[in-house]
């Protein structure tokens, strides 16, 4: 009813080369994006939605004839929703290195005529934001009213305030962190090792071998899912419930949680690319704006000019509330406008994707304050 309805992705090619943080230069690239709502005459009502690890440009609405193709943040974005497309012009973009149509490991490398595969460079959050700025130029958006994202998407919103302080008025940083902890990196490394050690990976050139590292990618997703949920929610959702009512005394799926993880892992391998997974976890690991300031986050955030909304979830142990508070304290130190909500939600890190009434109320209340 309050959906943006049927949407169509768009594609834009950028011919100018882009120098990446890792030292390589891409000769050019393409981005796939979607927009919802109308850009006003002043260009002052544009909101960029940044996606997390497995997200895409398809933020809201559905594709024609595919009723199940609902966008990943459809509960937040639409007419009358917290991110109201009656007021805002909302942009979703698939990041560089992605596997949903933007230039990435599956794209043809113009130098070889073959898919990039493992030769696609590792990209960073900084690179993504630089690329998103080119999309903003293309769309005629000089300054975003807001950039919003959860998890890795929140890191991009934060990076926007540092790389382009004059091109963003508000940053909404949700269930995020100023950098990964050693434990976060450890989980990412486990996921990467699962993929890298799969015999079907072929050093990343599996497209050429006609294989897919399904087992590795599946395992990576299973590890990820464990970290997205809270202990309480897993207990509530699955407990020790048995799949077939009886113990097998073997290695088949006895418990519902095993079945759930296998299902999620299998499903993921049907639509996500292993090389993109590797790149994206590295982008997560590398993000650390304080690194160039001797680890001083306060100094790193000094150049931000935007107003901030920061939110965390009480049961999120992957990006726990104290990680969000680090951002808040550093912003306070710099005298920036910031509001912070610590939302009581049982669903762990995944809470940011859910339709929790209070969560959506505070996000909506903050967005309502933004002048367009």
């Amino acid at each position, binding site marked *: 009813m309050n959906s943006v309805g049927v949407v169509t992705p768009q594609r834009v090619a950028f011919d100018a080369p882009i120098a990446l943080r890792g030292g390589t230069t891409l000769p050019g690239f393409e981005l796939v994006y979607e927009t919802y709502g109308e850009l006003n005459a002043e260009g002052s009502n544009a909101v960029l939605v940044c996606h997390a690890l497995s997200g895409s440009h398809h933020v809201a609405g559905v594709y024609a004839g595919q009723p199940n193709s609902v966008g990943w943040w459809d509960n937040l974005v639409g007419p009358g929703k917290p991110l109201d497309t009656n007021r805002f012009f909302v942009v979703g973009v698939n990041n560089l290195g992605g596997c949903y149509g933007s230039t990435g490991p599956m794209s043809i490398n113009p130098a070889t005529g073959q898919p990039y595969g493992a030769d696609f460079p590792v990209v960073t959050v900084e690179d993504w934001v630089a690329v998103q700025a080119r999309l903003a130029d293309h769309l005629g958006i000089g300054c975003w009213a807001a950039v919003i994202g959860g998890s890795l998407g929140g890191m991009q919103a934060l990076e926007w305030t540092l790389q382009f302080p004059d091109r963003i008025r508000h940053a909404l940083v949700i269930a995020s962190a100023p950098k990964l902890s050693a434990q976060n990196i450890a989980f990412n490394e486990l996921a990467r090792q699962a993929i890298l050690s799969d015999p079907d990976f072929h050093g990343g050139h599996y497209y050429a071998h006609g294989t897919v590292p399904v087992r590795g990618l599946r395992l990576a997703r299973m590890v990820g899912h464990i970290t997205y949920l809270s202990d309480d929610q897993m207990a509530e959702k699955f407990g020790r419930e048995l799949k077939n009512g009886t113990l097998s005394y073997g290695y088949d799926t006895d418990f519902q949680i095993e079945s759930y993880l296998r299902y999620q892992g299998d499903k993921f391998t049907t639509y996500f690319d292993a090389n993109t997974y590797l790149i994206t976890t590295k982008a997560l690991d590398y993000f650390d704006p304080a690194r160039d300031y001797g680890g001083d986050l306060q100094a790193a955030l000094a150049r931000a000019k935007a107003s901030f909304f920061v939110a965390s979830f009480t049961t999120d142990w992957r990006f726990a509330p104290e990680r969000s508070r680090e951002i808040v304290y550093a912003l*306070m130190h710099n005298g920036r*406008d*910031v*509001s*912070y909500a*610590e939302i009581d939600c049982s669903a762990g890190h995944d809470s940011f994707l859910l339709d929790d009434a*209070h969560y959506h109320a*505070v996000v909506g*209340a903050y967005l309502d304050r933004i002048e367009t």
Partner: protein
Amino acid sequence: MTEIFGRFDFDVIARWIAPGERVLDLGCGDGSLLKFLTAEKGIRGYGVDNAPENVLAAIRNGVNVLQFDLEKGLAGVDDDAFDHVIMSLSLQTVRHTVPLVQEMLRVGHEAVVSFPNFGHRSHREAIAKGRMPVSEALPYQWYDSPNVRFFTIADFEALCTDNGIEVREGLFFDEGRAVVDDPNLNADVALYRLGRG
């Protein structure tokens, strides 16, 4: 809890705040005081509250609000970050009274504290009749009160003396009218400016 007293409390506090100051308002509720001080004094600041409904209301009121648990202190906030740290009618709702007042004077040059006076005549009369007081200043039944500390003006001044906290100014009111004579008996609300001793 500022809504109980409305603007009267605000006006007194506003007199103590200089234009353009940096202000931290602990237990900010719906952010009305910050909004008032922003409009009247052009202050820049943040409210702190741990109740989800207050955080939502303060965001709607257009002020900066931070959902922190005051019982855990303000460890992430820099020394001397604020000109004034305010606690308007909220001190009685926190358990760690002394550490919190000390935190206020660490992060702020001066603290402003207001609280309901448990020693007010009407409260003493209620106790004398054998019942816990319920009044405009203490509008709760004993079993549903958010207040966890019950103290008088005399108690608070003793706390300041014992902990090296300088009382720079005290103003006392009864139903909004200034009280000079024996405030511990006659005032239902006290407001203080406090400094490092």
